[in-house]
């Protein structure tokens, strides 16, 4: 549905995005995850035709963005990062304007507007000036404008940034609902968002794809040693030696805050929970807690992105003033 091949964007000597290639399948929700300044916005701008790439090309539903820009753009609905909307326009008026830009006929436009007002839950503010709306409402108006012409691909740049928790939940629900009928490409630096919404994730940093896959497969691949919390009643004295002797235990330390609680680190291919249970039964210890901490995508993300920074710092010092920030 949407294909990027070898996308590269340079700003002078600084390369914001280098050789990114990926495909978004029809009906998929693909997340682009990366820290601020990783090149997410630059990438999305190239995909939507706002920024011409220095190298590489983009295909949208079979249309080449460079040679058939209008046909390609017609298939895209784009919500830019800062959701700028003319403040002096009323919501409905803005949507009518967008409908005309998209070339919708009068009847089509009326139907579409009524539909998106409803769908994005903004029917109650349709007569209000955009400038007087809260950020959450403005975001929804932007989203309504992006899906007005029933695009096949919806591109959302940090759709929940700057919203309060309630608004975030509302927008996420909306995106999930949209995902049932649209192909969605979503950028974010918020990890739970990706885990909640996306079928597949690209992790980018320093303008390159560091890894990709489903949230589960990423977690699987990047899982480190397991961490297990264990609490035994009465804090038996023999516990420390007996547990350390179990195969697969890398380290063991006391939880300084709770009497009798241990934090274990186990090697990644061994599940220590069963041996621990059997050990407790054998020694007649009373097991109060036995829990494994799951490696979150957050850990993976931090590992991938910090590792990259340290290696690249030695080779080239990237321009500190991030180009995508300057551009927005």
């Amino acid at each position, binding site marked *: 549905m949407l294909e990027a091949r070898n996308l590269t964007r340079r700003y002078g000597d600084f390369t914001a995005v280098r050789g990114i290639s990926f495909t978004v399948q029809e009906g998929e929700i693909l997340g682009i995850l990366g820290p601020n300044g990783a090149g997410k916005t630059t990438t999305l*701008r190239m995909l*939507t*035709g*706002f*920024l*011409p790439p220095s190298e590489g090309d983009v295909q949208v539903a079979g249309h080449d963005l460079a040679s058939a820009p*209008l*046909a390609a*753009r*017609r298939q*895209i609905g*784009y919500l*830019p990062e*800062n959701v*700028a*909307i*003319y403040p*002096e*326009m009323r919501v409905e*008026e803005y949507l009518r*304007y*967008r409908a*005309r*830009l*998209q*070339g919708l006929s009068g009847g089509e436009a009326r139907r579409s507007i009524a539909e998106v007002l409803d769908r994005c839950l903004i029917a109650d503010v349709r007569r209000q000036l955009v400038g007087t709306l809260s950020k959450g409402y403005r975001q929804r108006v*932007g989203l309504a*404008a992006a899906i007005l012409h029933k695009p096949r691909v919806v591109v959302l740049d940090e759709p929940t940034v700057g919203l309060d928790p309630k608004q975030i939940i509302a927008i996420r629900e909306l995106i999930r609902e949209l995902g049932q009928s649209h192909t969605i490409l979503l950028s974010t630096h918020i990890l739970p968002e990706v885990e909640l919404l996306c079928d597949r994730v690209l992790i980018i940093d320093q303008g390159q794809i560091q890894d990709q896959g489903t949230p589960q497969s990423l977690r699987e691949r990047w899982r480190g040693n397991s961490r297990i919390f264990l609490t035994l009643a009465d804090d038996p004295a023999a516990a420390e030696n007996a547990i350390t002797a179990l195969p697969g235990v890398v380290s063991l330390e006391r939880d300084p805050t709770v009497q009798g609680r241990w934090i274990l680190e186990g090697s990644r291919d061994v599940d220590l929970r069963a041996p621990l249970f059997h050990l407790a039964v054998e020694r007649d210890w009373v097991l109060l807690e036995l829990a494994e901490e799951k490696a979150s995508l957050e850990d993976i993300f931090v590992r991938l992105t910090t590792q990259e920074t340290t290696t690249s710092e030695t080779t080239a010092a990237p321009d500190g003033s991030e180009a995508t920030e300057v*551009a*927005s």
Partner: protein
Amino acid sequence: MNGVLATMGRELRSYFWSPLGWVILTGFLFFQGISFQTIVDYLNDPRAPAALSPLGFFFGGTLFYWLTVLFVTPVLTMRLLSEERKTGTLEALLTTPITEGQVVLGKYLGALVFYIFLWTPTLAYVLLLARHTELDWGPVAASYLGTIAVGGLFLAVGTMVSGLTRNQVVAAIGTFAILFLLFIPAFLDGLINDPGLKKVVEYLNLFQHMDEFGKGIVDTRHLIYYLSATVFCLFVTSRALEANKGR
């Protein structure tokens, strides 16, 4: 076409929806009113030289005319593209299926229509004169045509400068500076002896153009000058927008 009309409509609406449009309109009519009254006063005096037409005077005959046009056009065009770029609305606009050329043309036409709207109340002066004296309608029509041609070029220059910056003040001052350059041939007219050069300077003399329009002479060479320069500016704007929209 739809895209041009949509951007033009939005631009026009934003003039009427914002205080700026009304401030410009008020100031414009205030100065035109003073200008008209002064002219009529002057020509009513028996000592005034004969064979001067009040409307010829009104259109281009005084500094009132040139100063107002010179001030009004940069203010009308300063926000056209620079504001879109600054607030970021340009991004949502240029990712819709509409070309940069259509955006530029739509915005320019929006400003032009508002400029024409500014002048329409001055028809009242014409009608006022027509009640009291024989009016030759040819020169009146030619004067309005000339005013639209001159204003059209000025607005195109303003659109171009607005497309090159994200700062409205820079856009207005830059436009003002370039428009001032357009007047230089008129200032040089009396200072040049070389006959070849004099011809060139005469061709570019805005004062003389308006003077002729005021007399009812519609010289196609003048119209071609304004039209081609206008098209050139809009073309440059559209290419510039295409080249650096994402920056």
